[in-house]
């Protein structure tokens, strides 16, 4: 499972960080950083919630 963020869409509102701080971090430069691009399977539920709650539909999960 791989985290894919479309940075052209992302507007750094940090919603994903609120749900999965282990994976997403918005820093003081106002950019989103993906801390763990290949999170463990145990993070799937939180990652899926982030996909649903991202107001910009910027997050997707790639299975590879």
């Amino acid at each position, binding site marked *: 499972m791989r985290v894919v963020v479309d940075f052209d869409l992302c507007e750094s*509102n*940090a*919603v994903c960080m*609120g749900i999965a701080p282990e994976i997403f971090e*918005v*820093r003081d430069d106002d950019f989103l950083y993906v801390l763990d691009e290949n999170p463990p399977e145990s993070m799937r539920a939180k990652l899926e919630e982030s996909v*649903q*709650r991202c107001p910009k*539909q910027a997050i997707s999960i790639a299975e590879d």
Partner: protein
Amino acid sequence: MTSTAVVVGASLAGMHAARTLRLEGHEGDIIVLDPDLRAQYDRPPLSKQFLAEDLDPDRIMLQSAREDLGLDVRLGTRATALDLADRRIATQHLDGSLDSVPFDSLVIATGAAARRLPDTAGIAGVHVVRTVDDSLALRADLDAGPRRVVVIGAGFIGGEVAATCRGRGLEVTLAEAMPVPLERALGAAMGEVCARVHVEHGVDVRLATGVERLDTVTDGGVERVVGVHLTDGSLVEADVVVVGIGVSVNTGWLEGSGLTLDDGIVCDDTLLAAPGVAAAGDIARYHSRRFDRSFRIEHWEHAIAGGEAAARRLLAEQRGEAPAVFDPVPWFWSDQYDRKIQLSGRPEATDIARVVHGSVDEFRFVTMYGREGRLVGVLGMNRPRHVIQLRGLIEEGASFDEACARAEAM
């Protein structure tokens, strides 16, 4: 035995309810009704990117509409009455045909409609922004290069429309009937800061100023707005007027159904409105234990959370499981110019508001709201990380002083 679930409203709350019903085990039919032939789109862009750019409506489709969930979505179909005893919904299709749909469980998510100025129906150039068609019509009028746009109401949607119009290089007057905009949502001090953002961007902001009447001309049988007479005695010449004076809930079809209506559908604290009937999104009124207030929340994220919770509530009922209390901490954002305004919690005008980080003069700050010694809200301007992280403190029921100390250390 399979049962039929009906979801009324195919927008954010309704689609998330339908999705959750399906993904979490509802095996029978899931029928979704909505009169809007497009429905299933996202509303926040309608006052932002969609209005600013030449975006196609397909670009703002909801994710859930693209998933293969095996839903029976019936667009063009309006629910006109609910019969709780017979467990049936009367419907009317756009072509005029009448029908009815039986249900075993029901989620009501008919949301709200934009309020309009009285006696302005049919006047060209006068707009509200709630649907894709509204936004497309406004965009077309903006494309025509109006002399000026008057935005009536400096709430969040009015503020966003003003910002988008400035971004398009248009002259804007923003008229607000109250002395300070957003006072009920953010308190006077922060409302004043939000007003100043517009002034800084060259908007003609008129506070404590309402609309006396519209100035119109009739040309070729079409009445068109050419100006607005404001209560400060001035006439503002403008070819486009955008009305952002709040919403009224779409509960008309439920009159006489036996559900309790009071500016929304009154639910219990699990979003249940009647046995087998739950409500979600802008239309749902429920008691928040956390804030000890009656809530009806008009936020994007709350509509998703409510849709999911309503679906789970009905699944729990069917399975004889204990229902979960619905009481998330609200979270909201508004984008205006290059400012990201975000709010966690539910402040009131009488709360203490303390700026704990950054500077309001630079429009980059965090403000904490306290009531009876508790943290009840966090407002950020261009501070998204702080708002999201501090939201957890509201969830924990942190004391105001302790929360402020934590925020100052961030």
